[in-house]
């Protein structure tokens, strides 16, 4: 890489400028030579520039923006110039590539992005070339560490910055969630547009990180922790009021939330304690089954109808007990063997549930008709009116799940920095050394399993009520793999990472319905690629980053020094 950087060094700036200009040109060029089989590619991509000079919307607008930003970044005196330019380049390349691939595969063929029927449409190709040029230019300018800002703010000003930031985050989340619209046969381009938006957002975010803004803000929020948490929570609760506030998106967001809560629980076991748990989703299943049985569902054998909080607590406790039982071999078994034990446990759960063990799971018929939650006589699956604003149904579940995720995050954060959390991390790093330092490793490991399983059981209880049916199908091995992939993609041991990972892995299938057959295949491949190229995940935990990236002599994570960061491309 450094050799390449040296070769292009003399041309770096012109190359970056050329790339930036080309990006702008690409945005203005037509992208498709004819209307595709399933209609026009979105956002007037088929139009010539002169037909609609200012109607540059959607992904072309993103590309235009990236091009302008590249030019600004090259000429303005900003820190870590090379890194910023390169990030923007990755963003542009991602957008151009994704859209070109979609146009060609959606029935256009290569003619659609070159020349056909007397029309020429080189937008995609120019965009790809431009993206590569910018990346090379950025690399040639020189990749430095993300800049650190020394600006200190007074408390009110800091609060203002944080509020603005979180409002922007809320806006970005709503945009991302709805980007491309609802996937499915009616909207064949949902997947492509969503991925393209992700590429743009990732490019922009990594550029902001490079310039030092994100580091600065995270430091700021670290300093004003309580305030940040409150604002963030408020922002999450405001999501129903944005353009994501329809029933569909609320349901999607609520599902993501359930899996995010479960992923954080898994993160305790895998990320903090370093115990690979391949049957984790079984605990969620246990929680769901227990809650369904205790809540008066028609198929329930138990036949008692407990209020939700009590049922949820019982579900969590029972899942926790199973967690401790499964974790108990950890006293004698280590590492990879433990993974197999947990996998075996997960399979035993699925098998038992499938065969309707004790009449509790209703086998292949699932447990239907779990009643929805209610509070003050208001059922959670009904629409909600606040004053004159009507919010769609599903909002109450969304709110409940946001609170659940917040609670789980709080538990995780407190555990992580507690005595037991440090013990877990010590065990993860070196079990023998931890034992020598007086940590009761057996007890700590069982506790990790217990806490993780309890949280999963709680999430399972909410899952049961929200979905109304509990089937063993929802808790199979591959779901465990998906959760694990979420934790690893986000970054082991990191809270935002787990949420980000869970969001990505559960939004993408919604958007990419037409690729649903390939979902697991892509997950499998993603696990391999992440472990190979970015084992610390998208949002690395600080300790973990040092450990998984390997260190150089000075103790600086190698990743920071020699770059092979491909954030823009992986998103």
């Amino acid at each position, binding site marked *: 890489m450094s050799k390449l950087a040296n070769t292009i060094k003399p041309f770096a700036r012109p190359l970056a400028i050329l790339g930036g200009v080309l990006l702008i040109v690409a945005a203005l060029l037509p992208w498709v030579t004819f209307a595709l089989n399933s209609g026009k590619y979105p956002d007037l991509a088929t139009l010539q520039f002169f037909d609609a000079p200012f109607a540059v919307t959607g992904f072309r607008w993103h590309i235009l923006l990236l091009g302008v930003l590249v030019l600004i970044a090259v000429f303005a005196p900003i820190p870590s110039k090379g890194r910023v330019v390169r990030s923007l380049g990755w963003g542009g390349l991602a957008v151009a590539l994704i859209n070109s691939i979609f146009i060609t595969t959606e029935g256009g063929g290569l003619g659609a992005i070159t020349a056909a029927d007397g029309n020429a449409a080189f937008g995609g190709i120019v965009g790809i070339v431009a993206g590569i040029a910018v990346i090379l230019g950025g690399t040639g300018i020189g990749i430095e560490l993300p800049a650190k800002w020394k600006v200190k703010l007074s408390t009110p000003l800091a609060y203002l910055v944080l509020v603005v930031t979180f409002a922007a985050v809320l806006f970005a989340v709503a945009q991302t969630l709805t980007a491309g619209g609802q996937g499915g046969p009616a909207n064949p381009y949902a997947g492509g547009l969503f991925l393209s938006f992700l590429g743009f957002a990732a490019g922009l975010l990594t550029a902001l990180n490079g310039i030092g803004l994100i580091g600065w803000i995270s430091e700021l929020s670290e300093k004003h922790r309580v305030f940040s948490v409150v604002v963030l929570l408020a922002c999450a609760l405001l999501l129903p009021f944005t353009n994501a506030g329809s029933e569909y998106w609320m349901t999607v967001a609520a599902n993501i939330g359930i899996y995010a809560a479960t992923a954080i629980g898994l993160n305790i076991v895998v990320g903090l304690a370093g115990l690979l748990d391949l049957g984790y989703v079984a605990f969620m299943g246990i929680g769901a089954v227990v809650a369904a049985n205790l809540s008066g569902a028609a198929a329930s054998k138990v036949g008692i109808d407990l209020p939700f909080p009590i049922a949820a607590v019982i579900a969590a406790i029972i899942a926790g007990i199973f967690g401790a039982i499964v974790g108990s071999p950890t006293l004698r078994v280590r590492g990879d063997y433990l993974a197999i034990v947990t996998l075996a446990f997960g399979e035993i759960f699925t098998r038992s549930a499938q*065969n309707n063990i004790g009449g509790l799971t209703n086998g292949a018929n699932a447990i239907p008709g779990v009643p929805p939650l209610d509070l003050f006589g208001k059922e959670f699956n009904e629409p909600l009116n606040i004053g004159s604003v009507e919010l769609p149904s599903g909002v109450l579940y969304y709110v409940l799940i946001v609170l659940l995720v917040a609670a789980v995050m709080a538990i995780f954060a407190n555990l992580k920095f507690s005595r037991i959390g440090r013990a877990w991390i010590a065990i993860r790093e070196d079990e023998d050394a931890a034992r020598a330092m007086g940590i009761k490793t057996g007890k700590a490991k069982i506790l990790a399993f217990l806490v993780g399983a309890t949280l999963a059981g709680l999430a399972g209880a909410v899952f049961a009520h929200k979905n109304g049916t509990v089937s063993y199908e929802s808790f199979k091995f591959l779901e465990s793999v998906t959760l694990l992939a979420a934790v690893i993609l986000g970054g082991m041991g990191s809270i935002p990472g787990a949420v980000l990972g869970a969001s990505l892995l559960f939004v993408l299938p919604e958007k990419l319905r037409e690729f649903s057959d390939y979902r697991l295949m892509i997950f*499998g491949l993603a696990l*391999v690629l992440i472990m190979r190229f970015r084992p610390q995940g998208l949002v690395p935990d600080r300790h973990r980053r040092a450990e998984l990236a390997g260190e150089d002599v000075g103790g600086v994570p190698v990743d920071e020094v020699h770059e092979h960061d491909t954030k823009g491309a992986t998103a």
Partner: protein
Amino acid sequence: MSTLLQQLANGVVQGALIALIALGYTMVYGIIQLINFAHGEVFMVGAYGGLATYTWIVPESVKDVWYVSLPIVLVGGVAVSVAIALLMERFAYRPLRNAPRLAPLITALGVSVFLQEFVRNFYPNATAALPFPGVFVQGQLVIGPIRVGWSGILLIGVSVLLSIALQTYINRSRMGRAMRATAQDPDTAKLMGVNPDRVIVLTFVLGAALAGVAGVLFGTYLNNINTDMGFQTGIFAFTAAVLGGVGSIRGAVVGAFIIGLVKTLAGQYMPGGTQYDYVWIFVVLILVLVFRPQGLFGEPERVRA
């Protein structure tokens, strides 16, 4: 009594199959301390490779002549298995050789899911179970109350033969010595002139070849293959390897026969029947791990992380 004898016979056939796969697990673990989750998938891919060979390569005229078609199908299955194993070693595991322990394990999991889904999506009609031709003598061997298909007998014979051959190879040959040396101490082995990369590749190739043979013979025996079979059988084989003591060839074979018998006998005599035979195997696995982690033939002093 006759049911018991019949189930014992079925268990031995199962054990022979599991042994062929367990050897791959045990060898790879012995050398690079990696649980190759994807090894079960190598077995599955072998079966599909064999089926593809039979469908598209074996000439129509000799399809019914088993002593011509079976060797071709076996070669096809083994070739596919070995190719997959080589690719996976080169591109997934080798770059992670010095990474933290969790990394290759997760990679192995990813490879396993990927292979399973890849075959399911891209092999024609593989979304459902596919019929596998009986490329061997049809009919059954009948001894008193016991009936075993000839293809089952073949499975037992091949399994025992190959295990002995492997054991001999590892104990007697030059490469075998290099393998044992690498397993014991890779750094010292390197100093003594052993090329660890070559040894590791060879280990993967041997394991994959055995798994490929197992895949084809499994198809011939059951006349039915599906993409899930690798995962399930792989877990059984792994359990067998652990039971026998990971790293020990003899242990893997003995463990495999025990697991095969546990599976069939538990399916017959334990409450819940064949629906829960799986569960009993895992019970055995957990009991072994808790009470004798080094397995039946393992060396207790080896530190496992």
